[in-house]
């Protein structure tokens, strides 16, 4: 992450609580364009990386310390996209264990992306963003 420090296209978000880092997200507004047919070729805010701290993950600890890190990050990604004038359009490649979450958020599943480590690609339209943030 040192390499992108100060570059405008890479906005980084951190959630701090009780003096500790609870989640981290890196956006990239210059990586790719929309793939969904209805918005193909338009700009989007792409989530390069998002992760929550290990002690907040139900699959690692039986009692996660904080919930809502993920939904807060997605909301932040939407607001960031709006700020850029991309109307809440967001894209990301989900890790297999997180696919249900992005589907729950209302994002469209565009299937496994063979060009990016066989991760599933999800995209959010502006109306999906409106629905989630409303």
């Amino acid at each position, binding site marked *: 992450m040192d390499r992108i420090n100060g570059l405008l296209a890479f906005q980084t978000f951190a959630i701090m609580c009780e003096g500790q880092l609870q989640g981290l997200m890196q956006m990239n507004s210059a990586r790719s364009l929309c793939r969904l047919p209805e918005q193909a070729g338009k700009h989007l805010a792409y989530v390069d990386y*998002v992760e929550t701290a290990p002690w907040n993950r*139900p*699959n690692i600890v039986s009692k996660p310390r904080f919930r809502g890190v993920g939904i807060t990050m997605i909301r932040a990604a939407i607001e960031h996209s709006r700020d850029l004038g991309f109307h809440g359009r967001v894209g990301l490649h*989900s890790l297999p264990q997180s696919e*249900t979450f992005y589907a729950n958020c209302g994002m469209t599943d565009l299937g496994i992306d063979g060009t990016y480590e066989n991760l599933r690609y999800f995209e959010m339209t502006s109306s999906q963003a409106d629905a989630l943030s409303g």
Partner: protein
Amino acid sequence: MKLAITKEWFERRVKLEGDHEIAAGALARDPAPDHEAESMDAVRLAFGSLIESMRRRKGLTIEKLAERSEIDVADIVRIERDAHFRPEPRAVYRLAQAFDLPNKALQQLSGNTYAQPEMQEHALRFAARSGESPQKLSRDEKKALEEFVAYLARQ
């Protein structure tokens, strides 16, 4: 950027998260466990048992061994009990001298150099046969120790 999240929105939307993880992007991938590293751990475990057994056979306390081999007491404790602790080659060399064991084989056991599969097998068998009693070595432990030392000497 303004992020005005109301409590009401948060409580309503947090349900979407459930027990799911939220990881995205290849960077979020957890490192995969390395099988080779696992078998090396077993070898390192045998190294700890070997040093402990040799020390007990000589009737030395950790303190005495530390003094004799000029190694920190804390390092010897960690060599014997913490399989993730990687001792310095220098410390391993001193231990080899203190116990009259082949340095090359000890470096392999300590994880400083690569241990051949056969060495791994012998080390694992030795680790499985050595106990943790702080008292004198039992006859079986002594036998296991002697066999393993003889094997190391042949290396």
